[in-house]
């Protein structure tokens, strides 16, 4: 008897993709004949379908006009479409990405600094501990309307929402990292003549880095969530705004385009963080992939 060769992982993944997309595209066609087999949720009114989503993507991305003609690159149709539509896919993505980046940057740097200071000072951490616990217990998203109210519907409110979602995550990780430093390293550095500041720079920060990096991957996702929620509450541009607009028009395909773009953006950002992490933590054994 011959053993069957195992189907490769990639083949399975392709198969699953094709299956899901096919059900999405054609599944609801069976609803009329077999209502018990196909859930109502598959109704394209709610979830659209791949072909419509792709069509909507071409329109929102200014590749095609609403009438179905392709916008020429050289005759200026594309540029005109870009200029005419206030919140086309490109501008929306750029705005959302920009705000995510600044929110992430602000959250990571302030969370890191605060975590480092409190993590190395028993006194400060004792004083601030109850406040931190209290503020951390607030679901951060609940603050988004207040932030939009305070900072307006411009970019700033998105950056602040994003910051407030990210900062605690990074803070707690840095704090834990700074707490769990091997005192042996600190002693060695001291013996070799390091001052307190030099110990912070040469021992505390590098050994905390692994902890900080562990938080960066969720932090970038959180930053994106913060921006999108901010855009839901009130914005002129951005992917979140695109979703709200499509929702107002009951256009599932538009929402799906936005969601898929967000997915791609999320994957790209995570991959970026992962690469950075692998490079900066190359001294760690498990990161030696090369």
């Amino acid at each position: 008897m011959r053993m069957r060769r195992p189907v490769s992982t990639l083949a399975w993944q392709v198969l699953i993709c094709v299956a899901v997309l096919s059900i999405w595209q054609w599944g609801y066609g069976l609803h009329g004949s077999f209502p018990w087999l196909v859930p109502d949720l598959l109704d394209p009114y709610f979830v659209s379908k791949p072909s419509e989503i792709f069509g909507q993507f071409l329109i929102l991305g200014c590749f095609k006009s609403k009438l179905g003609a392709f916008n020429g690159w050289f005759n200026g149709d594309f540029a005109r479409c870009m200029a005419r539509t206030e919140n086309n896919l490109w501008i929306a993505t750029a705005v959302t990405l920009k705000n995510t980046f600044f929110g992430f940057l602000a959250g990571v740097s302030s969370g890191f600094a605060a975590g480092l200071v409190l993590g190395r000072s028993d006194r400060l951490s004792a004083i601030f501990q109850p406040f931190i616990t209290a503020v951390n217990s607030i679901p951060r998203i609940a603050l988004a309307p207040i932030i939009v109210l305070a900072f307006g519907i411009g970019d700033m409110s998105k950056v602040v929402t994003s910051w407030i979602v990210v900062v605690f995550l990074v803070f707690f990780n840095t704090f834990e990292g700074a707490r769990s430093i091997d005192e042996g390293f600190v002693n060695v550095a001291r013996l070799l003549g390091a001052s307190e500041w030099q110990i912070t720079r040469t021992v505390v920060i590098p050994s905390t880095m692994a902890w900080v990096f562990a938080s960066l991957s969720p932090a970038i996702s959180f930053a994106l969530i913060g921006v999108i929620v901010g855009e839901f509450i009130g914005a002129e541009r951005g992917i979140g705004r695109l979703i709200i607009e499509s929702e107002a028009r009951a256009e599932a395909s538009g929402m799906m385009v936005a969601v898929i773009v967000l997915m791609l953006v999320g994957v790209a950002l995570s991959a970026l963080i992962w690469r950075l992490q692998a490079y900066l933590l190359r001294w760690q054994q498990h990161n030696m992939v090369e």
Partner: protein
Amino acid sequence: MQPLANITPIKPAARAGAVQLGGVGLVYKTSGQDVVAVSDVSIEVKPGRFAVLVGPSGCGKSSLLMMMAGLRHQTSGAISINGAPIEVPDPDRVGVVFQEPSLFPWLTAEENVEFPLTLRGVSKQERRAKAEEALQLVGLDGFGKRHPHELSGGMKQRVSIARGLVQDPPVLLMDEPFAALDEQTRMTMGDELLRIWAATGKTIVFVTHSLTEAVYLADEVIVMSARPGRIVDRLEVALPRPRTFEMLSGDAFGSLRDRIWRHIRKSA
């Protein structure tokens, strides 16, 4: 003409021991009780000598070393290194090699060796040159770019020794540096250390709990006992140098080792 011998133009610091401990004691409090960790220890190690502190665990030999390094403070007595008291770590006078390799895993071997120089703002060029020299001395040229996890236990300890030597301190303190190594590597590292010692002429104070290692390496073995940590014997090891593997089975070696063992057995 006056005979020059009467003028004795030798600096007092050079005549005194490179490492001098006079009546050193260490008492610390645990839950209200005073624990005497080290009691009335006096040691003098002459420049260029290899002294080994040996004793059962808990005899305070590592505490003594930490005090000599300036990382802990004795509660009584005085410690001086090269003729001056030591109160804070002074890498110019004292190099330290620890039990664990204690290298920073995020730095390369080279950067680890350079570390004490980096702290003092020595220029990159000078640092590199000195680190290279130190790594060469410990037999690790060509390994500077590796991170600690890419090195074997013995190699890590060599890097550690290179770091202890990079500022060229007259005194090198070693706290059970080879305890974590396997037997073969340990023997090799012992020979390596003797070679480095001969090449640099440092004064070495070496802590170990291995009797064989103590006798094999030392000019002078200081035997300590526990509770409280105090000196119970001193032995001159008159075996010729270079020390060889064959000496380990000789009578002279055996009787020295037995003498130490009797002290340790009594106090353990």
